[in-house]
């Protein structure tokens, strides 16, 4: 048996820690955001996370980025739909980049050519 845990004196404690994800985001640098312009290859509308696969052309050619979102249900509630972006769409994305520089990220928002932005506000 582990050591007895003393929890007295706490009037009300929540049953879940104040962490809001099913996996760590420690691989993302949430202290800075990055803006990219690119072409949508695919929107993966899948559990547990949706992804925008984005082709970004740079000095070394085209690089495919994996932009992680929330689940389909959470994304739906934030205004997304399975057809919100289509293959070939030119978009501007704001994201939290990975700390190790791999072309993946936590997606903050997508602005489409029609000017509509999906995904939330710029980070504080």
């Amino acid at each position, binding site marked *: *048996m*582990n050591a*007895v*845990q*003393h*929890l*007295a004196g*706490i*009037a*009300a*404690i*929540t*049953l*879940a*820690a*104040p*962490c*809001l*994800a*099913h*996996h*760590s*985001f*420690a*691989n*993302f640098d*949430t202290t800075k955001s990055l803006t990219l312009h690119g072409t949508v290859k*695919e929107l*993966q509308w*899948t*559990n*547990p*996370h949706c*992804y925008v*696969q984005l082709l970004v052309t740079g000095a070394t050619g085209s690089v*495919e980025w*994996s932009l*992680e979102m*929330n*689940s*389909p*249900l*959470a994304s*739906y*509630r*934030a*205004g997304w739909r399975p057809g919100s972006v289509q293959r070939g769409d030119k978009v501007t994305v704001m994201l*939290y980049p*990975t700390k190790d520089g*791999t072309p*993946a*990220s*936590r997606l*903050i928002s997508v602005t489409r050519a029609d000017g509509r932005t999906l995904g*939330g*506000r710029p*980070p*504080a």
Partner: protein
Amino acid sequence: MIRANAKLTAALAATLFAAAAAAGEPPPPRALAFATLPDWTGIWETEAAAASVSGAGAQAAAKGASLLPPDFKSCHAAGFPAIMNVPLSDFMFELLVTPEQTMLAATDGTVRHVYTDGRAHPKPADLWPTAAGDSIGHWDRKTLVIDTVAREAGPISPFPGSPNLSTAAHFTERLRRLDANTMEDEMTIDDPKRLTRPMQSRIRYTRVRDIDRLIPIDCEHDRDPVVNGKTVVAPP
């Protein structure tokens, strides 16, 4: 997208009762039993989940998740009691209230059956620990009083720092609706093997208005493996 199901159900029940009365027959006993139960139709989520749907709440959620240990991963149903307090915008549940049982079904696949037909917990020889434990309940007017035992040993929630419980943990709850759009669960957890005193919590739920059905969440397309002690995003 909220449908007028509650009004439709009430109208249907009134019609049935009227038809029975017109025929000179009393309503069937089970219909009378249903009439005494509270109306908990709808979809419910914790207040914290409602706040994390978008905007500043979603940004705060991302920053909070960045504080988790790099290798943290929890890709399975929350189970009990964690399901009663998951502060995520894709965790919500429905409550199906019948005379014989109240069933809670959540988007992550967690299901709880609270039997209210007067039965006791199974005898020790017929009982073994499960993720949801064994729940029985009774009605105190419009409050469902729940008694749960035989929950598998382990942390209260999958998140780091959560207290670890034994199979001897005993859970009592008082679940009720406070108003049209708010529910509350008061829970007491006692575990003589792991806790020096009972721990208590009070969690409130709000009615979900932008979703009209439970949409499952799962890990079928998991692209977040743990590699060398760190969660990474796998290539497509």
